[in-house]
């Protein structure tokens, strides 16, 4: 019998491939300092994966590199090494590896790490993402959609809500690069996002709805900060959105088939 190739590592590599446009743009904008930061996070996320491989026989995953990349782009720049390592370890270990590795986790490890840093060290300023990086999220989303690792429903669900809100007069001009980057880096993660079709629409819409809410009522929050808060809350709600989707699917089926 023949076997296909969409196992976990292929999917992880496809996610990485989708994020390449974003990565290249970011490296070009931020230069050598960004390269150093990316290598630093890759090495330490890799170390945790190796530790869990040796201690718990969990195969390491390329998804660790996705986490490292997301953290390197979004982490506050003025944290010292200890603070960053604490955050990284908390995210990678507590949100992913203790559950059995990528594919069994509930929350996205990068979202958890960034929220942890945000709560733990609130005085550190969040970086400003310039518009080019925000635009680079569009090819990333397209490649992810074409390879099937990102769901178009999540992105469309978010776009619908953003569209309605901007018609209603909400101004996204300051925050859209951060929102776009967080959307492809954290929200579209195939494992932590909702897994049903209706669930994905709701999940994307919820993320965008939270962004709108925070833009209107959260005074003084940085763009990345409120995007990450929205990503974390949407992530926490993903299982219940899936439950809603399954319940409605079952109800529809009962009505159609008796």
């Amino acid at each position, binding site marked *: *019998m023949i076997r*296909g190739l969409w196992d*976990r590592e292929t999917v992880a590599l496809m996610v990485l491939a989708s994020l390449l446009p974003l990565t290249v743009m970011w490296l070009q904008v931020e230069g050598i300092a960004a390269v150093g930061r990316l290598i630093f996070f890759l090495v330490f996320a890799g170390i945790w994966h190796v530790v869990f491989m040796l201690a718990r*026989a969990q195969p390491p995953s390329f998804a660790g590199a996705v986490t490292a990349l997301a953290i390197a782009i979004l982490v506050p720049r003025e944290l010292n090494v200890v603070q960053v390592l604490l955050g990284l370890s908390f995210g990678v270990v507590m949100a992913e590896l203790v559950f*059995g590795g990528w*594919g069994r986790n509930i929350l996205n490890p990068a979202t958890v790490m960034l929220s942890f840093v945000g709560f733990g060290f609130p005085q550190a300023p969040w970086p400003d993402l310039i518009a080019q990086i925000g635009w680079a999220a569009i090819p990333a989303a397209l490649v992810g959609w074409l390879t099937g690792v990102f*769901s178009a429903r999540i992105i469309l669900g978010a776009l619908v809500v953003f569209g309605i809100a901007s018609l209603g007069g909400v101004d996204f001009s300051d925050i859209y690069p951060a929102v776009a980057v967080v959307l492809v880096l954290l929200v579209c993660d*195939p494992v932590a996002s909702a897994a049903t079709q209706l669930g994905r629409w709701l999940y994307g819409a919820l993320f965008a709805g939270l962004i709108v809410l925070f833009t209107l009522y959260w005074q003084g929050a940085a763009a990345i900060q409120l995007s990450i808060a929205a990503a974390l809350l949407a992530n926490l709600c993903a299982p219940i959105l899936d439950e809603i989707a399954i319940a409605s699917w*079952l109800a529809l089926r009962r009505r159609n*088939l008796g």
Partner: protein
Amino acid sequence: MQWPIRGGLSVHVADLPAPSRAVPVQITEEAGLTAAWDDDFRVEPLVAEGDRVAQGAPVLRSRHYPEIVVTAPMAARVAKIGLNAGRRLSRIVFYAESEAGRHSFDTSAANSLDAPAAMRTSLQESGLWSAFRSRPFGGEPVPAEVPTAIFVMAIDTRPGAPEPRLALSGHEEEFARGLRALTMLGDGPIFVCQPRGKTLFDTSGLGERVRVIKSGGQHPWGLPGFQIHRNYPADTGKPVWDVHAEDVAGIGAFLETGLVPETRLISVTGSALREQRYVHCQPGADLRGLSHGLVKPGRHSILSGSALDGHEARWLGPRQRQATILSGESGQHRRHWFLSALQGASRPLPIIPTAALDQAMGGSLPTAALLRALSAGDAETAVKLGALSFLAEDMALVDYVTGAEPRFSDVLTTLLERIAEEEVG
């Protein structure tokens, strides 16, 4: 009102020839019927080794259900009857001997199409009963089972499968007669699943109970499991049968003539063949005979069934309509011991919900939730999501796409066995 079917995946194995030429008939020199070791098919032989049997003559009788018989696939001499402990069938092998002729049954009572009991008896004593498969749990229906619905599959989307339309062309009348025969087996609807386009047969005079489902979509939408799951889910106490359209035409022909159909249309495909072909051959045909002279040099494995759900076999399996000959070593290649150990330690491998996974289950049910319930052995959720309509073959595409370990086909089979035991015990 339901959404029209879209979605699914196409898996390319080999290009079948355009069915323009007349499809040859080939009766292989040997034919055999086997049972898996865990089938527990206990039989009473009706013939002895060395006997000459006519095509269609009963050769084995089930000990659990004496109504069920197995008939000879061709005019032949019985070469070998292999029985395991407890008279469980392991295999029965025939050598062709065309002088033995064909066995004829008296079908006058059943052919009147108004005596349900006679219809059942006719189908059972001629071995045509084995064309049906009952869900939930699979397998041939027990003699007294009354289906709540029957799905007639005039569509097959497995890679390399022969088009049922090709098998039906020229037999439309027999097909309609066969459908009328099916309406006598139960009170429920008869669904005929066919590709989009012109209706394949004349629906007049068949009544309200025969309904046509025109299905678009790629694999797996041509599998009975997905059509049943979508249109008429099976449940314990609500058995749903499926049967191939060609077998229904065969039943129609049998009722008129009293002769069990000699051949079925199968495709012989695969990467190890120089030439892909269609052939009419007997049930249980020798797969090496069918591919003889066509195989490229080098190692190959011969599967009964498609490249996705087939199993290595010597003989064409029951209800199978495909022989697949794949080049290269069968099974997985050897990997470094450390990688295999790592993989082995983390089973079942996690499932990443991607678009490929959704499409592998047809794109219209909560795939990830169903697969997670299966991996976790959560029978209650799996049943709620419709697992009772599925059988191992329906999971073959998911196994192919994800390279799942252990295979979802096996996981589902185990789960269904457990549910069956709980229901019965």
